[in-house]
């Protein structure tokens, strides 16, 4: 499904929030791109700026937000410079969003069929009856049982999982090019989580949409994403393919995140955690924001922000540890094991590749 066509490009985005306490620098120079049909996961803890980033893509920033710089190019047009009317034409049609809490994101006084049909009526001027029949199709597609009889029910008559399916139906009814899923399973039971994630994967294939998947749950990322961007304190600190992030992480923050996620190989009694709290973005640190919590921090980390160092064509990390002059450090045990596995995977892939090449050459001959 994936292609190399880039449909969304976020360049050096900087967003501040004016509050009574001062200016909160929520997004501090964030850049990423999204390719057609791919799933990009943005991972980070609460307050790292994941949600603000996606809101700016939807043009739904709070009133006290100020875009300080950067651009968000969608098909070559800057979303940040669009008029309100153009943004309204984009939302729910080209870019749609699934919200975190299905219990509160549906209008309690409107029948769900109407809520699903609404984006069709708004964007395509589809007449009500036709929109309702399309809504019914969408309800079936997202797996709402007995859809014919339930189309006129109200949200309170559905369970949490079913409501999230309804929210997904609303988001997908116009076959958007980009689907932003902002922690879509956080508020759901674990069993329901898996169902919803499977559903999203299935539907992505069916309607070939790109997904920006926001989460703080790395376990969910592994099964969903093609690429991962790790955010910390309003910046992306590392990005790469899902294998690169999971098995060859370079940034100490990514190490911390991965170590604090238990796996089947975890044998230690105590679950690892990252000490300390994220920095105050009213007054962000001069150097690497993660330095105060980073056991591997160098002196330069407190003085100068690290640039992105290239690990591979798809993998970049912003840590001074990758600088040629940096001392060699030993990552946590768990990460070393992951890196071993990565090396193995790469060898296998290389061997396979070689094998293919030989086969191809043989065929050509």
């Amino acid at each position, binding site marked *: 499904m994936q292609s190399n066509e880039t449909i969304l490009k976020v360049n050096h985005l900087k967003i501040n929030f004016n509050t009574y306490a001062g200016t909160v620098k929520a997004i501090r120079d964030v850049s990423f791109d999204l390719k057609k049909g791919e799933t990009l996961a943005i991972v980070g803890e609460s307050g790292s700026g994941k949600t603000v980033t996606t809101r700016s893509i939807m043009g739904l920033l709070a009133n006290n937000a100020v875009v300080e710089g950067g651009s968000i190019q969608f098909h070559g047009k800057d979303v940040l410079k669009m008029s309100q009317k153009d943004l309204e034409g984009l*939302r729910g049609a080209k870019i749609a969003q699934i919200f975190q809490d299905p219990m509160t994101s549906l*209008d309690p006084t409107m029948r769900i069929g109407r809520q699903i049909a609404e984006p069709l009526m708004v964007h395509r001027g589809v007449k009500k009856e036709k929109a309702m029949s399309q809504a019914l199709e969408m309800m079936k597609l997202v797996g709402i049982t007995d859809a014919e009889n*339930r189309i006129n029910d*109200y949200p*309170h008559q559905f369970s949490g999982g079913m409501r999230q399916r309804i929210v997904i139906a609303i988001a997908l009814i116009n076959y958007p090019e980009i689907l932003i899923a902002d922690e879509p399973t956080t508020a759901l039971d674990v069993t329901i989580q898996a169902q919803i994630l499977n559903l999203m994967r299935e539907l992505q294939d069916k309607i070939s949409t790109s997904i920006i998947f926001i989460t703080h749950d790395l376990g969910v990322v592994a099964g969903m994403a093609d690429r991962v961007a790790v955010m910390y304190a309003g910046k992306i600190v590392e990005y790469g393919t899902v294998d690169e992030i999971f098995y060859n992480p370079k940034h100490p923050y990514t190490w911390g995140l991965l170590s604090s996620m238990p796996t089947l190989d975890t044998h230690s009694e105590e679950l690892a955690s990252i000490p300390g709290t994220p920095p105050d973005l009213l007054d962000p640190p001069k150097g690497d924001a993660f330095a105060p919590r980073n056991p591997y921090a160098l002196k330069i980390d407190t003085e100068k922000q690290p640039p992105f160092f290239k690990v591979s064509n798809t993998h970049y990390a912003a840590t001074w540890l990758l600088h040629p002059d940096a001392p060699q450090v030993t990552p946590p045990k768990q990460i070393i094991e992951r890196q071993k596995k990565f090396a193995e995977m790469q060898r296998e892939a290389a061997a396979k590749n070689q094998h293919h090449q030989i086969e191809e050459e043989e065929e050509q001959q």
Partner: protein
Amino acid sequence: MAKYLLKRIFYLLLTLFIVITVTFFLMKLLPGTPLQNQQKLSPAEQHLILKQYGLTKPIWQQYLTYVVGVFQGNFGTSFQFSDQPVSYLISSRIGPSLLLGTQAMIIGVIPGILVGALGAIKKNTWIDTTATIVSILGISIPSFVLAVLLQYFVGLKLHWFPIADWGGFAYTVLPTLALAASPFADTARFTRTEMVDVLNSDYIELARAKGLSKWGVIYHHALRNSLIPVVTIIGPLAVNIMTGSMVIENIFSIPGIGEQFVKSILTNDYPTIMAVTIVYSVMLMVVLLITDIVYGIIDPRIRLSGKSN
């Protein structure tokens, strides 16, 4: 629905019975007799008159007589107006009161909702501030003060409307305005608070994410949800208007039941006090019943006979 209505009407009658009982005994606790201003009469003559009206019997016997009478549709005769039946007295006076009350309710609540909603939508702008100041004034100025101010400025100085009496639409304008101020202010404050909450809710965020325009979001999603709690204060507002009308009708010399009520209390006109109390209670309970039904209509979560799976 029919079953629900029958149940509600049963409770309404039961409540009414309790109201009648309590009011009856409270009223008898009031000092004085209907004849307290008739010093010219000798005690023997007074006793004769009281006996004629059955007021010398024990109180429980008077109570029984009254309740039986009420259930037969007999509200007694007024002491004050030379033996007029109370039912006639009330029916000839209820018109102006109902008209004023309804007008005050309509021009209070509907603009109140609009102003409140506008304040929330334009939060923290001069529109919001103005709306807030106006509604705080509306809450804090007593209706009788407003009535007198209206009489003086709009009536006496500007000659736009008659300052008192009863005789046509023009006569209703000032008392209606005086009565409507408090429901207007309450509704505006309440709607604003609710609307601000609703506008911050997740489903409004989702409605925006659907690509609805600002006013589309407000019209299709925010308004109805903000109105649900506003409906609940309509009952208390009706009470406000009823009690307000007693004062306002006196100030504007309007021949309504509010004015009658005050007069009958001052003269210990027992049958009239009782009858007006019953009328007020019935009106209030009917308003509450309508409120509950409307509540169900606009909020599907508490709909009375909705099918659920």
